[in-house]
């Protein structure tokens, strides 16, 4: 019995020590704000876990019946073809959307024709998805700083806006999905160019909706109106003109002055796989950068 008592006492000590350590880390990270002292640790963990996650995803992927996986070059060619199609579809969507027509009417078309409208994309695949138990919607993609991917870059796929890069390690990057509760995206209504802010609801799947708060209280969004990104300076974190979703319902309450619209995103977040990260057209990296209409091989980024 004496032994057991002796055995129990250090147990409390260990517990207290570990709890203290946990609280210390939480405090350091929560108080740190933008550059938290935990970030170097995160980078180390990212560089260590990223490749393992990539490997695991590569092992798991064949079981998802992805065609052409077994021959590497063929699958890469396929990927390039798919992304080209994706790019074309995306630009098609852009051209046909009412936003593009509005733009043209506003003589913005001049800018458009002058050169770089199609965004350069680095193709990447989703290798890891954060669990719902963590209450945040983030994924890991298999392109990192070695491919020219950095924090605050726009991530999209053939359907529309996916999210933005919040952290990039050597070979992987973490993407915050637009449906996350912490995500705010500047959006523009396609029919009347009104701007507003889209906030995620923290759910994916059928309930994966966004709330749109318009800046101008007098404007009522129309049903089925398309929302595209508003864009920021230098395209960080979001480039302009990427389709986000469609208005499915509009609420207005007497208590609130502005109207709130619910947006159904184009992207199916429960089955994310191939995405593109918008990079500068002259990005040099270890994988091919897909420019509008042409593919620049890895390593030779000039255009």
């Amino acid at each position, binding site marked *: 019995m004496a032994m057991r008592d002796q055995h129990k006492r250090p*147990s409390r000590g260990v517990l207290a020590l570990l709890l203290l350590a946990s609280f210390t880390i939480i405090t350091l990270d929560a108080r740190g704000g933008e550059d938290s002292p935990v970030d170097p640790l995160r980078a180390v963990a990212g560089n260590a876990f990223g490749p393992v*996650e990539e490997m*695991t995803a590569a092992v798991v992927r064949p079981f998802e019946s992805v065609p052409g996986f077994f021959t590497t070059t063929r699958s890469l060619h396929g990927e390039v073809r798919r992304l080209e199609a994706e790019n074309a579809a995306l630009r098609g969507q852009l051209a046909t959307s009412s936003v593009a027509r509005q733009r043209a009417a506003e003589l913005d078309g001049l800018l458009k024709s002058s050169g770089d409208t199609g965004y350069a994309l680095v193709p990447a695949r989703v290798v890891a998805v954060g669990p719902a138990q963590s209450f945040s919607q983030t994924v890991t993609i298999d392109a990192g700083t070695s491919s020219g991917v950095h924090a605050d870059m726009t991530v999209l796929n053939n359907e529309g806006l996916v999210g933005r890069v919040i952290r990039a390690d050597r070979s992987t990057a973490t993407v915050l999905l637009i449906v996350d509760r912490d995500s705010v995206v500047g959006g523009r209504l396609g029919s009347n160019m009104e701007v507003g802010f889209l906030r995620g609801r923290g759910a994916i799947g059928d309930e994966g909706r966004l709330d749109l708060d318009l800046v101008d209280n007098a404007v009522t969004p129309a049903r089925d109106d398309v929302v595209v990104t508003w864009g920021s300076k230098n395209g960080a974190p979001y480039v302009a003109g990427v389709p986000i979703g469609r208005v499915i319902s509009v609420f207005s309450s007497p208590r609130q002055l502005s109207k709130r619209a619910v947006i159904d995103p184009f992207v199916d977040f429960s089955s994310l796989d191939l995405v593109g990260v918008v990079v500068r057209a002259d990005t040099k990296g270890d994988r091919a950068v897909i420019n509008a209409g042409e593919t620049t091989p890895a390593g030779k980024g000039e255009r």
Partner: protein
Amino acid sequence: MAAARALVLTMVITLAVVLQVALFPHLAYAGVVPNLALLVVVAAALVRGPEFAAVIGFLSGLAIDLAPPADHVAGRWALALVVVGYLAGRVRQDARTSALAAIVTVAAASFVGTSIFALSGMVLSDPAVPAVEALAVIPTAVVYDVLITPFVLPLMMRLFRRLEPHQVAY
């Protein structure tokens, strides 16, 4: 020998954390995946007791907090799994004897762990998850953890028994 033991433990924790984010999302139910790291901690608790499990809980929790794609305040899963390891270790005398008791322990551990994580999120507003949503996720997590228990827990317990340094019985 101690180095080999540490290496195996590191590998087990890494595997649990990686499979949780890279393999199980394909089998997720409403985004909820089985918490493999939690099962490792419970197995450690049932075999080796509260202190060892609390240490394993701290390390695996920290791994979940830091490994991509995690983006919450670091230390939250570490805190949750330290408590889980300690509590599960305290009940091990009853739980290591029968399968049913082990499953109940896993269910309780999953409930406590996910709840502590959700609560710490509410306290830090990181993000401020409405209680209703947390309450919708937690039962699913408990059920999924219990479902995966027969495949993971016996394996992990056997591993921890093998790793246990020989000691004099008292």
